[in-house]
């Protein structure tokens, strides 16, 4: 679905002479139907990477392929954007229209989809994210989580194969956060969509099929959540967190108690501890 080969991205700042590499030799493959989380602290290059997935940014070096299409090929950019939907951090700044359903219709309208078909897509998309009842509401009166679901519906209405979420929960409260994560999982499980989640929240990354850890523009790890989070010391060194139960098991093991190192959830942790208690 998405493939980057030796991707580099640099930008020159006005004040400094030096060229800074925001992305440095990034090789990443996201397969169809996969849920991949890209984890890293602010400024590690993860959002820059996301913007390469639909051609918003073009590589300074290396290549990015979306379903085999090179993002550098100018005549394909619209086709690529249609295939990769994007959801951004600030829910207010990605809603164009004053009525929910008209906002969701924005992308298909741009693509020249006939009216009847737009109606159908908009209704479907709103039902998928559970916002159909509020389709005639004004977006500015919705909660953060609801606005983000509208933005997701707006992306789904393009009928993309993949949606890239660029820190979609950073500005939400816990309730909004779980609404967005559940919607994301639903897209993956029920609609078979490919999901890429850019985040610095480890609880969210733990729900993915694969976690990619980035730091200073490089990919440091690319593995299953279980394997990634068992490296407590490594993640903490990068300024990242691990789930509390994972850290608990890590601390217990360090104290010589035989507990597994790859627990991610409360249930798994309780299971492991019950063996000893």
């Amino acid at each position, binding site marked *: 679905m998405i493939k980057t080969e030796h991707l580099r991205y640099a930008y020159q700042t006005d004040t400094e002479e030096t060229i800074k590499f925001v992305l440095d030799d990034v090789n990443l493959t996201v397969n169809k139907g996969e849920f991949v989380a890209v984890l890293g602290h602010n400024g590690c290059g993860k959002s820059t990477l996301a913007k390469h997935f639909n051609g*918003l940014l073009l590589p300074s070096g290396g290549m990015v392929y979306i379903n085999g299409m090179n993002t550098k090929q100018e005549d394909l950019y619209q086709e690529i954007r249609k295939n990769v939907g994007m959801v*951004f951090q600030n829910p207010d*700044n*990605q809603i164009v*229209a004053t*009525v929910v359903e008209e906002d969701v219709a*924005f992308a298909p309208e741009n693509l020249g989809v006939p009216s009847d078909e737009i109606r159908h897509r*908009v209704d479907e998309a709103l039902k998928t994210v559970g916002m159909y009842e509020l389709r005639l509401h004004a977006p500015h009166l919705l909660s953060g989580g609801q606005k983000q679901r509208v933005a997701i519906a707006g992306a789904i209405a393009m009928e993309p194969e993949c949606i890239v979420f660029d820190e979609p929960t950073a500005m939400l409260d816990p309730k909004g956060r779980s609404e967005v994560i559940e919607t994301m999982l639903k897209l993956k499980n029920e609609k078979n969509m490919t999901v890429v989640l850019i985040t610095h929240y480890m609880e969210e990354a733990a729900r993915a099929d694969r976690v990619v850890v980035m730091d200073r523009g490089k990919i440091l790890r690319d593995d299953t959540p279980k394997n990634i989070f068992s490296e407590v010391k490594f993640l903490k060194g990068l300024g990242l967190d691990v789930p509390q139960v994972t850290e608990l098991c890590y601390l217990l093991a360090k104290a010589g108690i035989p507990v597994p190192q790859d627990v991610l959830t409360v249930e798994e942790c309780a299971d492991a501890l019950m063996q000893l208690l």
Partner: protein
Amino acid sequence: MLKDITLGQYFPIESPMHRMDPRSKIVLLIFMIVAIFIADNPITYALVTVFTLLIILLSKVPIMMYIKGLKPILFVIIFTAVLNVFLTPGTKIDLWGYTTPMTWEGLILAGKMALRLILLIIASSALTYTTSPIILTDGIEKLLKPLSYLKVPTYELAMMMSIAIRFIPTLIEETEKITKAQQARGADFDSGSIFKRIKALAPMLVPLFVSAFRRADELAVAMESRCYQGGEHRTRLREIHFKGIDLIAVLVFVLFFAAIIVLGILF
């Protein structure tokens, strides 16, 4: 405060007015305004008033919403009325044996002006309450279409307008937030000389502009991600059509307009 301004707010319900083509609503509103201003005798006034009430009924928007819409201009109405009452030359009004500076002619003129203003606001509100901003801009764009042959970017203008409308509530909220934040740092927006007050606005305006630019940037990226490429080949969720209901509305309106003119000449 700022949130109370209702003019320009869409009221999402179903009604005959909601179903109408925005183009016919805009054109009819223009003629309605003309009618309000040519009405000049009791009969024609009564007619435009009744017609306005009919519009309120057909829009199915609660009358309270219209009254709320009048609130911000209440001051203007009262102010012009007072000026008219005192400044119009004519027969002075006698009250309890005193001759006041008010005139009967002034009183009548004030009443007429107030009524006109009120009807004007109600008729305009009826358009914005029953037409979502996107459809309204669609309508304006279509009406301005002839201009695009003169290389006027009508589509882009319409898009700009609808985005501006979309961001009004967001920016109002932001203004309130920033004002409070600066007040918490001891800002004083309402005392001192005019010059001082204007200077005191910088801590509010600068962050507001910075945030507006940031929003514009992010919005542009989000729009691009959703395949925005200007007005060409664009379709609509709701294509606007001139329907039967529009024909009926136009016919009724033509009758009404003719009646205003005829009655205006006769009486």
